[in-house]
């Protein structure tokens, strides 16, 4: 065969092969890019000023841990892998479980039972939820105060408070006193609780100092206790934002309860901090 024709032919083959291969690769890339883009977030350290904590705030903290750092909702949902805590009346359920003949634990109260379930899940495994082949004697649940979850005692108390309060039952957990016990990671990376320092230098610092992220979805937090603030700049103007901070009871957002947000920011915040936070929130227009 003529050499030049052969060259053209082999050139054509190479071209076709490359075109086909790259096109197919692009199809796969397209598929990946058309799907919902969800980025996993590493837990963000949040400073909580526990000396100013109310019981309602503590319960809200527990709720945010339940769906956040505690990663409880990964299994405790309606998919059948673990008891659906959010649907069950946990106080009634705990009482039932403690009365079960299979229960061999040492808990004397609902609060104890809940704490025991977090620290030693295999002590009592609810029927049907044990690891396959263990005949409901080994639980697949990780220990809450060990890695990878690493909840502190205070955080576990908050979760217990949430589980008790969510169905309208009494909360028996005591509020933590004084400075909080921090988990190892927070100890390693924590700065001092900002309550007694000078005014915050930046908006983010102020948000941390006044524990806004404990209840509001803003600056990396996903808490749903209060209205989300990631796009608040679209909803409220400057005056309304200031009013919401200084006089939270004036307007309650739809779907949320009164009496949850601290009402004493007017006394605690400096004017510069208020201005910074307001400015910051005005610029939160969502769409990141």
């Amino acid at each position: 065969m003529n050499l030049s024709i052969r060259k053209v032919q082999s050139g054509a083959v190479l071209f076709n092969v490359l075109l086909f291969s790259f096109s197919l690769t692009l199809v796969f890339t397209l598929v990946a890019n058309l799907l919902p883009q969800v980025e996993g977030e590493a837990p963000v350290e949040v400073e909580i000023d526990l000396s100013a904590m109310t019981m309602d705030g503590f319960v809200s903290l527990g709720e945010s841990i339940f769906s956040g750092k505690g990663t409880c909702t990964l299994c405790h949902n309606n998919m059948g892998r673990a008891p659906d805590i959010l649907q069950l009346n946990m106080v009634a359920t705990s009482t039932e479980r403690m009365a079960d003949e299979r229960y061999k634990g040492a808990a004397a109260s609902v609060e104890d039972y809940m704490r025991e379930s977090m620290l030693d899940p295999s002590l009592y495994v609810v029927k049907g939820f044990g690891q396959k082949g263990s005949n409901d004697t080994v639980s697949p649940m990780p220990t809450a105060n060990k890695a990878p979850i690493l909840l502190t005692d205070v955080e576990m108390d908050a979760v217990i408070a949430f589980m008790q309060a969510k169905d309208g039952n009494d909360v028996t957990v005591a509020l933590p006193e004084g400075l909080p016990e921090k988990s190892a990671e927070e100890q390693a990376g924590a700065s001092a609780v900002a309550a007694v320092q000078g005014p915050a230098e930046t908006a983010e610092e102020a948000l941390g100092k006044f524990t806004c992220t404990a209840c509001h979805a803003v600056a990396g937090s996903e808490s749903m206790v209060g209205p989300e603030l990631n796009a608040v700049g679209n909803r409220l103007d400057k005056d309304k934002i200031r009013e919401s901070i200084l006089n939270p009871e004036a307007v309650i957002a739809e779907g949320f309860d009164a009496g949850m947000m601290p009402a004493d920011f007017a006394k605690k915040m400096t004017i510069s901090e208020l201005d910074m936070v307001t400015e910051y929130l005005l610029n939160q227009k969502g769409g990141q």
Partner: protein
Amino acid sequence: MNSDILNKNKIRVILSLLFALMLAGMISVSVSNEVYAASEITSIEDRIRSVDTGGLSADQFKVEPKSVGFPPFAAPKLKAKDYSKIMGVSSRSIVWVVAQMHLFFAAFVLAVPLFVLVIEWIGAKSGDERYDDMAHECMKISMTAFSITAIFGGLLAFALFILYPQFMGYMMNVFNTQVLVYALLFFAESFFLYLYYYSWYAYRWGNKKWVHLTLGLMLNVVGTTILLLANAWVTFMMAPTGVDDAGAVTGGIWEIMRGPLWNPINLHRFIANIAFGGAVIGAYAAYKFLSATDLKARAHYDWMGYTANFIAILAFLPLPFAGYWLMAEIYAYSQQMGITAMGGILAWLFIVQAVLIGTILLAGNYYLWSGMSRTKGSERYTWMIKYIAMVLVTCFLIWVTPHTLILSASEMKLLGGSHHHLLGPLGIMPAKNIAVNLMLIFTFLSFQLYRRSDKEITVGWAGFGNALMVSIYVVAIVNVIFAGVYYGYFTNTVYKVGSSVAQVVSTLVVIIAGVVIDTYMFKGAKKLPSEWGKVSNRAQYALFALPVAFTWLMALMGYVRSSVRTNWHVYTVMKDNSPDNYIPAIGFAGNMMTIVTVLFLIFVLFIFWVASLSDTKQPKPDFLTGDK
């Protein structure tokens, strides 16, 4: 006569020496480990615990701060500022690309000697020289790949040490001597590789051929050992064993290596490598087929392509089972990790995986069907092809159906949730298990039909044999569907999960029974003529689709493996506080995968070109030969 006996004895001596070498190697590895362990303390209670617990209380670890000769080394606790960057580029992205390239090539160079050995053995047994020539050609293609693997390996090591020095320091401390063994094994690998390749025609016949096969075997033994050693690092990062809560070593090297995920990954990677290697060789054959200028070359490369596809699909069929075992072990180790992988943030990824595997199966099947045109005997079976295709496409669509729909808030209100009423149930595992198992069964059917196409069966019990085979298919298919529908939708979670094993076993029964029954049915069968080379050019593109999909799929699975560790370098032991400590979104990951796939394709083309180049002889120009 005397020289025969002399030769036989020489062979025996050589073979014995080789086996002794292998044995010595294995013994020295385990002995060195024993020595390492013995140099520590005598009892568990005296073992090193971490002294610096970073603020955690002593009760939690029962710390006994005794210094016992081997420095205690808890996993470092790093902060964001402890991580370095090169030129502002994300460190994770750099390591991602380099590591993935290394893994692609490592998979290739481990796989090729495996099936080359088998092909060479078939050639030695059957006396058909075509097999030996093809085995040699495959080795030739892969020679360049070995050095590229090493280059990327070295680059990876440098990248890891520069970008994650504390992590590497910790890992080196944990694995210690084992890493040295890994490095030294490359001497053995190179030794056997060069001997195996360069002695091909020197040790071609008779007893020397058996020596050559032994060299190939040794090459594979060393290669597999290297794979197993490296797998231990990655599975340790996911499910650490032999260390305490703070990361200090408490067990011997075997305890550290033999975590719950080690053997599942070993099996999965071993089989997947073979499938991957077959696919890449198939691409080479397809390329040479399309550029062939004479019928003889066309026939040769057609046959090579068929064999490579055969290897790729055959190795591919058991892969879902190995993958299932891996996921089951992940779930058993940590339900959190399991759910993150399949029910949580990474769930959509498995839809992408469905697309890729669908591509692989459809391409493989299409190639088989196209190949049926090589022989007239296939006309008996061609009517089945459209039904097989229909089943494959339907199953693929079911597999690709997601559970949760991509909806906006208002659409969700209209629908009354995030699941479709009718199609929602198709999005959960039972439906997908049915789909996958059926796809595998029907792919095997294509396989079996192709193998029967060029034969006329002559055994007396053919009637019963065929009845048995058909029954196995029918009952297996019914069983797969029954197990999936009944246990999947009408019983509790534990039975639902357990039923997938029953489905998998049903599929395996079909495959194993098919192979065994056909082996016996083909005895003395009349072979119909088949024309190698008589296949469409179009079919060759299926052989390109295969490695492209395989490569992208490998990268995708690597993304899962890495991501299930979430924000941990070593899960539960060493936290990841780098700027990249989040699971990247799938679009970003997809772009990375495309980059590495394209890079790999380019490198592979280079390898093919070099292989072709070594065969090319430039004709001496006239002005040098003729009279001036």
